[in-house]
């Protein structure tokens, strides 16, 4: 048995039974398939995380994000004090992660692409877009740029899903997606 040395000292010369061999071959091929599936999706799939990222000084990142928000601000989110920023389709969109907020609120148009910039000013945070369920890690000192295309309109929330301190559970943000051509129009449904 498995607790004793093999009875046959030349155990490596024993042939393998057919059923066992079949399973090994199936399992190996399945592994190969799953491996190439990831590569296939890079070529044909539409959901691949961008590798584009840069080292960045948090202060520099914040300054750029604030200047950008000033330029494209269209109002405030209810009485929360958060600016709502509507960047032009195809343009840059910044989100600043810091304990314990995602800043600012974005307003995007359905079907348009945006270059979304993500970085943290302090510790690691988890960008979790709900209920879409897209989850991306955010590091301090690294600026990650992802081209995203919202395909449904509505109000979406950003939850922090990387533990970042004792206020982790109040760290939320918001992305509004409006119908094409309505960017910059009056804010739908204040608050939420």
């Amino acid at each position, binding site marked *: 048995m498995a607790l004793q040395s093999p009875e046959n000292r030349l155990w490596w010369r024993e042939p393998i039974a057919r059923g066992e061999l079949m399973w090994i071959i199936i399992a190996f091929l*399945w592994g190969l398939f799953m491996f190439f599936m990831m590569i296939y999706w890079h070529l044909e799939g539409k959901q691949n995380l961008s590798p584009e990222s840069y080292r960045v000084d948090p202060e520099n990142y914040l300054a750029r994000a604030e200047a950008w928000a000033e330029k494209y601000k269209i109002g405030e989110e209810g009485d929360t004090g958060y600016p709502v920023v509507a960047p032009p389709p195809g343009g840059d969109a910044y989100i600043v992660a810091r304990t314990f907020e995602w800043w600012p609120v974005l307003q995007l148009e359905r079907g348009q692409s945006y270059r979304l910039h993500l970085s943290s000013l302090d510790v690691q945070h988890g960008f979790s877009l709900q209920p879409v369920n897209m989850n991306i890690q955010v590091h301090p000192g690294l600026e990650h740029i992802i081209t995203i295309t919202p395909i449904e309109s509505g109000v979406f929330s950003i939850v922090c899903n990387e533990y970042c301190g004792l206020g982790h559970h109040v760290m939320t943000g918001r992305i509004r997606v409006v119908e094409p051509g309505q960017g910059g129009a009056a804010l739908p449904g204040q608050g939420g």
Partner: protein
Amino acid sequence: MATATGEVGVIAGIAARFRSCPVTGLKVDLAAERLIKANAVAAVVFLAIGGILGLLVALTRWPAVHLLDADSFYLVLTAHGLNVLLFWIIFFEIAVLYFASAVLLNCRLATPQLAWLGFVLMVVGALLTNWAVLQGDSTVMFTSYVPLKASPNFYLGLILFAVGALIGCAVFFGTLVIAREERTYEGSVPLVTFGAITAAIIAVFTIASGAIILIPTWLWSLGYIAHIDSLMYKLVWWGMGHSSQQINVSAHVAVWYAIAGLLLGAKPLSEKVSRTAFFLYILFLQLACAHHLLVEPSLSAEWKVFNTSYALYLAVLGSLIHGMTVPGSIEAAQRRNGYTRGIFEWLRKAPWANPAFSAMFMSLVFFGVIGGISGVVLGTEQLNIMMHNTLYVPGHFHGTVVTGTTLAFMGLTYLVLPLIFRRRVVWPTLAKWQPYLFGIGAAGISLFMLGAGTLGVSRRHWDITFSDALLTFDYAPAAHLMLGLNGIFAILAAVGGALYVIITVATVLFGEKVDEKNALAAIGPIPTRVAETGSSKNVAEHGSEGLFHLPGTYVLITVFFAAFVLYYFVNWKYLSELWPMS
């Protein structure tokens, strides 16, 4: 000579004292036996602590109960991870290493004094880290991602614990050398020892990764180093964090073979195949720090794909092989015992009343179905974006580490108690039900966390209703249901876990002494050999091809594989509906 001690094997003036085991006939080095006991006892103590903390976590996640306040929740969650994932499991694994070397190879343990030093370091380290967490200034979670900073004692405790574990590995390797030198066994080492060697090799790699990152982080917490890069920390830390879970896989697969061997006389179908599967672990399981870095900035897709798939899923191949050969060896043994009717008589008539067997078989099934399939899906580069840092992640690793490793170790305990502690398990009826309570409870915990994670619920999160957040949000109502069910199954698992601790402690203290007369009875019900029928002869000895016929195993493996493939493609379907990104 049954329980008498005698002096054997005098080398370089060191006298080792042995007794011989009345059940297995193995020679047991008394120094090894004492160390196995000490490590096993420490393991159970930390399981009890970590288990209670885990129950508190689950009861806080249950929205209707929401037991702890936020600060306590995060503190308790940090301590839960450390106590069960590190301290319980590694103490038990050190016991397994000493068993698989000294006991199985009929050998004296190398340098017992050094082994005790390692044990003391592990105990001191575990206590120091726990103390640091209880102070409240080290609530950084098990992963302690920089730049979150814990107190220096948090890291120092982990470092001491790791050094102690490393000494344990060194003693294990030393014992293998002695066994070879003194020719205490014939031919190759047993398969179980081979599995333990796999675990120990991975452990050395793991502990080295831990040292590389935890020592600078400790110095950083003391102020001697100005900056630790958050991404580099994470990459190296997971060289420890994920690889250490591969020690568990290797160890509990070895335990599966050991329990099946002891209770049923099961032999590996093919020594060559089973050993190759372990060897694949050694070669490829160390990869996989990428599992936690798939949605990280700045790492290339090529590296992610190669690392997350363990090269070409070659380590997964190892597990898929064990997943067939372990039930296959049980079926072959049972058919040899005469249970040859139909496809599943061998399984129906297995010793389900023996807690060692039921724990082992549930561990095998749950590890494969819950932990294994979810792990491969979670570790697929693009699919990870739907699950990263959601409750899917703890759902997956409770499937592997709780229903897999912990349940297997619980099963082994029911054999360690009579054979090493030489005490008969008290309250056999309770012991019979214990693995079912714990196994089903833990499987429920895993499944409902997987479900909540699929709905997007964040892990390590105190309040999923976001009642204090400025920008409000609420998860789908089904998520609340999932977390309620998670709480109920956590209670079930906690009852099972508490029974395990109570039965073990009571047996060690008050169990009836085991000697050669009652030794066989003390290991619990085992299948009786029924009359030889014609077809039972069709089951050959291990390794001889073409003779054995294992229809039951083929049915089980086909069902498993179909579920795996289906679930894999369902997730790609979900992914294709996500917002396009590049």
